[in-house]
């Protein structure tokens, strides 16, 4: 059985060992263990030679992406500082930090793919699996937890439909505890959000609309319900 991700896409087994492991895995392998990164129980193929810095002539990189990565590299005394912005840019193009995306960044930055993988797996906003092009981070951290955030997170997950290209996940404090319970939709903070509004938010993301117009931080006239309009 091949485990499937929430959005219906099939997980890619990147090496034979993992493929075996996944093929033989019992049903519960598909159940995500909370707080454990996906792929933690997949072993590496130790017989494979390590990947070296890709030959720039062999890797095709979209022109815009190459230019963006090179611009980032130019800003720092050491080009490796561009790893985070470069990977973020590649993720925007590819939807996730796929082996292809990593190879492209590695070719432009002249670093090994392994180095970039080590970076990708450390940071919550970089996806080492194809979890969805859009994201809804629902904060369930301390202050939001005190204001019923779990119900909001559950409602968001329940509102997902098969085929949705949306990564709904619980997130730690997003620095907007005044808006609790809140969520971050593709970089736009909205809150406070009632669990009953979750289907509307998910539908908006699905249809490419702005969720809850006027209720996003930075929207014209945005203010919290208990603040006076300025």
């Amino acid at each position, binding site marked *: 059985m091949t485990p499937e991700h929430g959005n219906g896409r099939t997980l890619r087994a990147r090496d034979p060992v993992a493929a075996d492991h996944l093929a033989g895995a019992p049903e519960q392998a598909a159940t995500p263990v909370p707080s454990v990164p996906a792929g933690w129980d997949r072993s590496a193929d130790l017989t494979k030679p390590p990947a070296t810095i890709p030959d720039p002539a062999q890797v095709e990189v979209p022109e815009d992406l190459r230019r963006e990565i090179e611009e980032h590299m130019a800003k720092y005394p050491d080009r490796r*500082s561009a790893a985070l912005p470069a990977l973020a840019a590649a993720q925007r193009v590819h939807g996730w930090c796929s082996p292809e995306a990593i190879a492209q960044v590695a070719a432009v930055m002249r670093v090994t793919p392994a180095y970039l993988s080590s970076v990708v797996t450390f*940071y919550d*906003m970089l996806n080492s699996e194809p979890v969805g092009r859009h994201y809804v981070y629902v904060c369930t951290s*301390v*202050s939001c937890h005190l204001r019923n955030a779990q119900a909001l997170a559950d409602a968001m997950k329940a509102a997902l439909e098969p085929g949705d290209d949306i990564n709904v996940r619980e997130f730690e404090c997003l620095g*907007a505890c*005044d808006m609790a319970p809140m969520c971050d939709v593709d970089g736009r903070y909205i809150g406070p959000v009632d669990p009953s509004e979750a289907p509307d938010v998910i539908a908006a993301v699905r249809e490419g609309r702005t969720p809850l117009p006027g209720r996003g931080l930075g929207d014209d006239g945005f203010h919290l319900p208990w603040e006076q309009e300025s």
Partner: protein
Amino acid sequence: MADQTRVLLDDIDEPGLHTIEVYERLGGYQALRKALTTMEPDEIVAELQASGLRGRGGAGFSMGQKASFMPKGTMDKYLCCNADESEPGTFKDRLLMQKNPHRLIEGIVIAAVAAGANRAFIYIRGEYVLQADILNAAVAEARARGYVGANILGSGHDVDLVVHRGAGAYICGEETALLDSLEGKRGNPRLKPPFPANQGLFRGPTLINNVETLSNVPIVIAKGAEWFKQRGTEKSTGTKVVSVSGNVQRPGNYEIELGIPAREIVYGLAGGPPPGRKVKCWFPGGSSAPVLLEEDLDRPYSFESMAEAGSMLGSGAIIVVDDSVPIVSLALRVARFYRHESCGKCVPCREGTNWTVKMLERIDRGEATPMDIEILDQVQQNIMGNCLCVLGDSMAMPVRSMIAKFKDEFIAHNERAREAADRLAVGAGLSSEPVDAAA
């Protein structure tokens, strides 16, 4: 309603404050002009030291003193503005960057000149997309006017400034993890010493300060240390933007003079808990501060008074917890945060946060023995002081304080959960012997 003392937030409601035209119209960049044309770098450092300005990012170390640790001499030196703001409960830097980015930039350039740094970075958490866009636009404006870049205002000082976006990791707010992350690596903390002032970013001397700390710098320089010191207490000078959240009626950022009673902030400004509810406990400085009780609200809100109470002012984030919240669920929620965010480099933190969560889950399910609560406390003691950074301590301190102050509730919670589980087991026919069959 109690009053705020607005210094940092004085013009915060001014439309268009984030643009350089409005900021300059309100007197912006005059402090930079003053610093560059009338003061030597040493004098700037001395003024900052005299002001008593303490770091607003967590540790509360004297800003001027830290700047004075930077070695002299010509070499590449760096300034990093810590805008990672990820401590649960903290959202003040978000407001300062979004509404008044130029004051931060002005502060960064003045501090960089004082410390002899020629390159500056703002490390902003990746989730703050809006604020990073605003900062980038503001830096471009400041560069166009000659406030950032080479030979600033003809003074001969160069300060380059780059906004660097993180990608979601609380640990990158820890100063040495921030440096590794900025060098393009996983954000693992480094061994100290060497301290960043000696060997930091790209192995060069580096000054690291929080957004709010640096935003105070233009005020100190423009108005002078004496003026600055008139607000606050002797050991906690100036004002503080306090983020109040949790079970209060008006969560938000409030700027107060350091040293006013905490009750005025929690009740006067933030409206206190919902009607009919009481304060059960509160975190005075983000989720890593030991919790205090209702009666502690009468203490002055200052660095020294929070330390005296056995807690800390930290990032200045007050999280209020009302009496409807079970303490075990709060402890569990806090512990899960640190388990998720531990970078995994040091064993006591990586394993300690994990086992703390597991033991708290056991208490929550009623599966703990009385000894477990003692063990839980021991685990906390074994984390503290035994790691490269204090992320593990940041869980151990609040969890320990909850065990110390609400021990009976932990025990009662476990008992009740056990009884409920037993009843369920009988109801489902899972118990081994029906009661009357044994009789």
